[in-house]
């Protein structure tokens, strides 16, 4: 039979740093909370644990220690956890439907905290769908959670702090990095230094990554981007060329790298599926990574009872997410009438200072990952933009020529964003393409949130049932 509902005070979707602290905070103040995540354990992408069976390092990194600390806190909090559960449905009020290893579950609570993190933006180029070309975030997961190199030789390209994190991880893992290709200039990075000193520990880690790369003699190409990747007999042939500050290709010498793997990422976009499905008000914010739910300082959205926290509320990094989740946990319990305002104020004050400091660092990094419009302008017309449905830029442009003024029209006319990924991969780029033709992101809009949030089989949702048990509604009068 289909799942019967289990009730809680607060539901948390997402087991990254924001979701964990939201759940532990609610528990600490006596609330009943359930946390749902599709991975085997908590940690999110940044604090992903090694799978069972993998040897633990005798010298864990600061990131591994932080992840273990968060996981321990969650495990001992008494929160109900649903790992390996894919959330496919959210409904007002709130009800969350998920499918896990033992079938469908349905959870309900008057408060819902969405801590769904981000997805990666990759600006399409010819050949970006070739197997062996993967996201930068994907490469961090391979290195951290699978102890695997993306290739024997890898080209690392795109923008933001993941570039040097991934490249240094590959070098330390014994792999070869052909080059690091950064859209930004060295000067842009230096310009961020004043904000970065707010977290000297993270700044020092970045410096260590850079020295690893220097010691390995990895070439750094600033103000460059991938033009094309071709599959050849000897591997992937990546063509790299110079770009301007806005990301537009510039004339100048191109170079070729023959590698067996390319990892590329152009920043992170907030995963706003849950708040979009629940029809919260959103606004476009370039530095926060795209469309985000409008929130107050405690994550409250325009939908009463719905909170959005962490990177899903705007890219600010894992360190900030941890404090943000706790603040929202306090707010959710207070809004339920379960927590006195003096307690909330006392704790929020303590968290607020840490949150500000961490967010300052995170937003400086987010600024390095903001979409550069001219890089989207330069996508060649015959390049696939929507991977799920094989939709090219030319088809999107044709839809706009035919009168589409908004991304959902483009979706309906071309199937762009209609495939199994629900537009998570292409959504931000399609919106930018449309925005450049119709007069801005606010006009172009965003893909309306639709269920299911993840592809699930009908069988998994319905479970085993007896035909006679299906209720037949009374027929409408003739």
């Amino acid at each position, binding site marked *: 039979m289909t799942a019967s509902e289990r009730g809680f005070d607060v539901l948390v979707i997402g087991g990254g740093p924001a979701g964990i602290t939201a759940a532990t905070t609610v528990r600490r103040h006596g609330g009943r909370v359930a946390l749902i995540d599709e991975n*085997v354990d908590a940690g999110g992408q940044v604090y992903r644990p090694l799978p069972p069976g993998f040897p633990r390092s005798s010298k864990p990194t600061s990131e591994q220690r932080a992840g273990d600390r968060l996981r321990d806190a969650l495990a001992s909090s008494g929160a109900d956890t649903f790992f390996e559960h894919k959330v496919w449905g959210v409904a007002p009020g709130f009800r969350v439907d998920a499918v896990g290893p033992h079938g469908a579950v349905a959870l309900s609570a008057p408060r819902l905290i969405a801590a769904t993190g981000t997805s990666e933006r990759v600006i399409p180029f010819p050949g970006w769908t070739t197997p062996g070309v993967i996201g930068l975030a*994907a490469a961090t997961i391979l290195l951290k959670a699978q102890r695997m190199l993306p290739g024997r030789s890898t080209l690392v390209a795109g923008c933001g702090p993941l570039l040097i994190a991934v490249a240094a991880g590959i070098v330390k893992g014994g792999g070869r990095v052909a080059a690091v290709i950064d859209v930004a200039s060295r000067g842009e990075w230096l310009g961020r230094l004043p904000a970065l000193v707010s977290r000297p520990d993270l700044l020092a880690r970045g410096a260590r990554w850079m020295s690893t790369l220097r010691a390995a003699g990895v070439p750094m190409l600033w103000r460059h981007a991938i033009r094309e990747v071709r599959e050849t007999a000897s591997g992937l042939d990546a063509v790299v060329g110079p770009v301007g500050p806005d990301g537009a290709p510039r004339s100048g010498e191109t170079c070729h790298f023959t590698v067996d793997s390319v990892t590329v990422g152009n920043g992170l976009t907030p995963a706003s599926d849950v708040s979009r499905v629940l029809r919260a008000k959103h606004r476009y914010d370039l530095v926060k990574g795209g469309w985000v739910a409008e929130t107050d300082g405690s994550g409250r959205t325009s939908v009463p009872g719905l909170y959005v926290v962490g990177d899903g509320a705007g890219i600010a990094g894992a360190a900030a997410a941890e404090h943000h989740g706790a603040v929202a946990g306090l707010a959710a319990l207070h809004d339920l009438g379960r927590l006195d305002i003096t307690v909330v104020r006392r704790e929020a004050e303590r968290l607020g200072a840490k949150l500000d400091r961490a967010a300052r660092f995170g937003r400086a990094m987010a600024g390095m990952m903001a979409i550069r419009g001219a890089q989207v302008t330069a996508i060649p017309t015959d390049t696939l933009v929507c991977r799920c449905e094989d939709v090219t830029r030319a088809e999107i442009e044709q839809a706009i020529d035919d009168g589409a003024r908004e991304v959902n029209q483009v979706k309906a006319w071309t199937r762009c964003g209609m495939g199994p990924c629900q537009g998570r*991969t292409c959504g931000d780029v399609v919106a930018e393409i449309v925005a450049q033709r119709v007069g801005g992101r606010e006009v172009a809009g965003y893909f309306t949130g639709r269920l299911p949030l993840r592809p699930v089989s009908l069988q998994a949702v319905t479970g085993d049932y007896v035909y006679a048990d299906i209720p037949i509604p009374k027929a409408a009068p003739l």
Partner: protein
Amino acid sequence: MSSVAATDDDAGAGASGLRIGEASRGRQVSFLFDGRPVVACEGEMIACALACAGIRTLRASPRGGAPRGMFCMMGSCQECVVRIDGRMTTACQEPVRDGLDVRGGTIGNIP
């Protein structure tokens, strides 16, 4: 020390040189991909085990029929979808298990 590097043919998992600290990995696991035996280590995701065995194409795209494989590694993009016992699932989120019969995820490719 058990190591998958000792396997002798191209179905072996060790030849790739992609595993970091391979020698100290967990128990060996073997499964089938499109009928071809693949050896992996416990704890690895199917997409990763296949990449280590030199298999990166997991399906063909629905319209263009172009090769596709692992891309986001976090269950978002759905590019690495494969079929296990008739069930479609993301190979980046599904751990290897002994005896799994994994097929490519091309739609219309049901054997």
